[in-house]
């Protein structure tokens, strides 16, 4: 019996365990406009790499109604919900798991329809790589740009642009080239510089798993070859130790441990850590684990740290090391926001903000919205569903964070509407001083000088604008009516209040508007002429 087990261990199982140990994990998502072929592509990847079970193929074949897709509609392998099969579209992210000899993959198949963009963001938030699909016949669509911009915002380190349905474009090199040029330019604007472009046909399988003989002009790898070999770069690029405390474990009087997931860096027994908000320091006594204490632990392990000193630490605190680049600890910061709720963002509302293990309330004042057509910014005070923009956030308590581009885990939050409990928005943080227009004078200094933030206040009539100018002046604010958008923006940058008339904007009594401005965090409540203080 023992001999039998041994011989077995050397066989397929031993091989499996050995290769398995070496395999790493690539999380990716497919995105792009509806009908670009995302679901079909994933079905093709799974099918051609022999990762589909027979009964799943039979079930898909039974349900194949779309005869134009051939004997088997591969999109049915991922489109799992009844409504999806009935409408032939994908409404929610489906996760698929497959492995090759080299790597394990988790693929999120995300919906193309604009109304389901929130589900696309769900899939994108944890991805290491994005595949943006483009239909070769249709070229770059608004949704291609929107998805690329979400991928860029969410900091997905790698991007593959798969130009699909090459079979319907005669496998023509020029079609591919033209789209490549156009989309490269858009990606450049979004700060994505390393995109890899591949011509494929998800339906016929050209260049998906195997290189295609039909496109001899293309010398690159097949999609799967690329996915198997591209180096994985996780976005916790930060090397400093960070661990938000999830819970304090106190099974008895002799043990007090801080449990949490390491967001970045590594930690060893004996290392000094600092706790926020107290800024008290202690040494790591042990890293406790069921299987025996660890000497060392690193991101993204879930660990329990015991410290040498009894510090007052609770859920939501942050343990870190490395003073050179300490985390920010402040209640005001900037964030790129993706809005995911049918109710537009309300600048006067207090949202519930969840960040690491901390839950606070927060007001969100929008500054700019991204225009999906031009990929440029325009000024905005709110966001509608699926819009993206830059905001200033004022939280009820300080948050301990790193800029999102350095640390996905400590730099991200979600916003919950306290009335509906919906997850309304997602935010990617950065410190106020990091603003693009950061110059010799910081926004905080300007606020200290004027006693209010810079803003463009839009009113429906000139009379109202003039009345507001007087009222604001009387309160000690720096405000002026201006004619052009350009001068408005200049005043705003200088930290002053620019008044402008345009349609469909603020209306009502000056008193009401003033209290709205307080609610939005533009004016400080009942502030009266504290000019020059606090510099």
């Amino acid at each position, binding site marked *: 019996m023992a001999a039998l087990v041994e011989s077995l261990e050397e066989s*397929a199982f031993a091989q499996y365990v050995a290769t*398995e140990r070496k395999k*790493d*994990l690539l999380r990716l998502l497919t995105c792009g406009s509806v009908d670009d072929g995302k679901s079909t592509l994933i079905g093709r990847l799974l099918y051609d790499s022999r990762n589909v079970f027979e009964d799943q193929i039979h079930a898909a074949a039974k349900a194949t109604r779309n005869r134009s897709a051939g004997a088997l509609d591969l999109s049915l392998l991922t489109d799992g919900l009844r409504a999806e099969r009935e409408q032939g579209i994908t409404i929610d992210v489906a*996760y698929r798991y497959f492995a090759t000899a080299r790597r394990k993959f988790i693929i999120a198949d995300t919906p193309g329809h604009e109304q389901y963009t929130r589900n696309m963001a769900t899939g994108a938030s944890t991805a290491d790589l994005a595949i943006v699909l483009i239909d070769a016949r249709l070229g770059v669509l608004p949704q291609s740009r929107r998805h690329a911009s979400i991928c860029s915002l969410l900091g997905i380190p790698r991007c593959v642009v798969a130009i699909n349905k090459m079979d319907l474009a005669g496998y023509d090199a020029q079609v591919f080239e033209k789209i490549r040029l156009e989309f490269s330019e858009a990606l450049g604007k979004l700060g994505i510089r390393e995109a890899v472009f591949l011509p494929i046909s998800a339906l016929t399988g050209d260049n998906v798993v195997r290189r295609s003989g039909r496109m001899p002009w293309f010398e690159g790898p097949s999609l799967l070859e690329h996915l198997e070999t591209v180096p994985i770069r996780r976005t916790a690029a930060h090397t400093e130790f960070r661990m938000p405390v999830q819970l304090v474990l106190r099974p008895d009087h002799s043990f007090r441990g801080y449990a949490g997931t390491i967001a*970045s860096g590594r930690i060893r027994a004996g290392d000094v850590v600092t706790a926020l908000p107290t800024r008290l320091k202690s040494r790591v006594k042990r890293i406790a684990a069921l299987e025996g204490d660890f000497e060392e632990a690193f991101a993204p*392990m879930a660990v329990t740290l015991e410290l040498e000193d009894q510090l007052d630490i609770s859920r939501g605190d942050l343990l870190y090391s490395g003073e050179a680049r300490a985390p920010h600890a402040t209640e005001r910061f900037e964030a790129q926001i993706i809005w995911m709720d049918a109710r537009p963002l309300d600048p006067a509302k207090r949202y519930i903000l969840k960040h*690491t293990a901390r839950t606070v309330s927060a007001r969100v004042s929008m500054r700019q919205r991204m225009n999906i057509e031009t990929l440029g910014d325009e000024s905005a005070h709110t966001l509608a569903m699926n819009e993206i923009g830059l905001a200033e956030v004022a939280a009820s308590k300080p948050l301990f964070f790193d800029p999102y581009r350095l640390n996905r885990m400590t730099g991200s939050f979600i916003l919950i509407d306290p009335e509906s409990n919906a997850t309304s928005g997602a935010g990617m943080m950065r410190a106020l001083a990091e603003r693009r227009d950061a110059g010799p004078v910081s926004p905080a200094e300007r606020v200290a000088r004027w006693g209010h933030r810079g803003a463009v206040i839009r009113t429906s009539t000139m009379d109202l604008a003039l009345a507001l100018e007087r009222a604001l002046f009387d309160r000690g604010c720096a405000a002026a009516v201006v004619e052009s958008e350009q001068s408005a923006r200049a005043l705003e940058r200088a930290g002053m209040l620019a008044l402008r008339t345009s349609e469909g904007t603020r209306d009502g009594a000056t008193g009401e508007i003033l209290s709205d401005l307080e609610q939005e965090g533009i004016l400080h409540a009942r502030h009266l002429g504290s000019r020059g203080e606090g510099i």
Partner: protein
Amino acid sequence: MVYTQCVPELSHLQLLEAESMHILREVASEFQRPVLLYSIGKDSSCLVRLAQKAFYPGPIPFPLLHVDTSYKFREMIEFRDFYTRQMGVRLIVHTNRKALEDGAQPFAIGTQRCCGLLKTQALLDAIREGGFDAAMGGARRDEERSRAKERIYSFRDAHGQWDPKNQRPELWNIFNNRIESAESIRIFPLSNWTELDVWHYIHVEKIPIVPLYFAKERPMLVRGETLIPVEQPFIPMLDGEQPKMVRCRMRSLGCSPCTGAIRSDADTVPKIIEELIAARRSERENRVIDHDQDGSMEMKKREGYF
């Protein structure tokens, strides 16, 4: 440089373990009355191990709930009682007695209705009676197409129902735990594990599992490809049909009348893994209950089935 990679890479399995522990800790921190749905199967066993790790050196801070249809395999119940006692966890067992007294039984009322009463209804009742606001389960996204779409935190309305068209976005590892009273959240810490990952973990962690997973000679009704276990007296036999001893095992566990076995020689975890690597058919296929109609799992889930 900021962008240099200085931390070692974790293996695939270590990444999954860390993610699951993170989820279990969130649940324990943020809900008033969480409960772990314990189905006695291999996935539940993994979940219990992960919970032990997440709260070590403390105890698992929530009870386990087993919804017992009374038609589970005898070996499952034995294992359940042994394992939970050994772990020192609190076990709650709930059974829909009323339905059983009224004769609920798959061959009398059909598999669908029987599941509806003894599993779905029983689960909803147990959650309501226990006042649980969060119920964790071992479901994985690779099990079935509608599961592939489900969030890790899966919101259920006051009737325990899932609305697949209206799921909350779920970004990074930040979870929305907000609910009104009577609403609840189902939580799936193993969402990103595959069947093979679970077996691999059982192997490296030496996690105890029900012996039914291992191949052995067992009495079965052989109907074509299907092997039906004969533990319950009410299994209707065809004319002249006799149970035969077949070397087989269970790929997933459920109620004995509705869980098909597979022919197999795999009597150790390594052999099961070998068998799976070669397998061309999915895990749920031999679960008789899933055959009723296309998309049937989604229907059950909408109605509140775990």
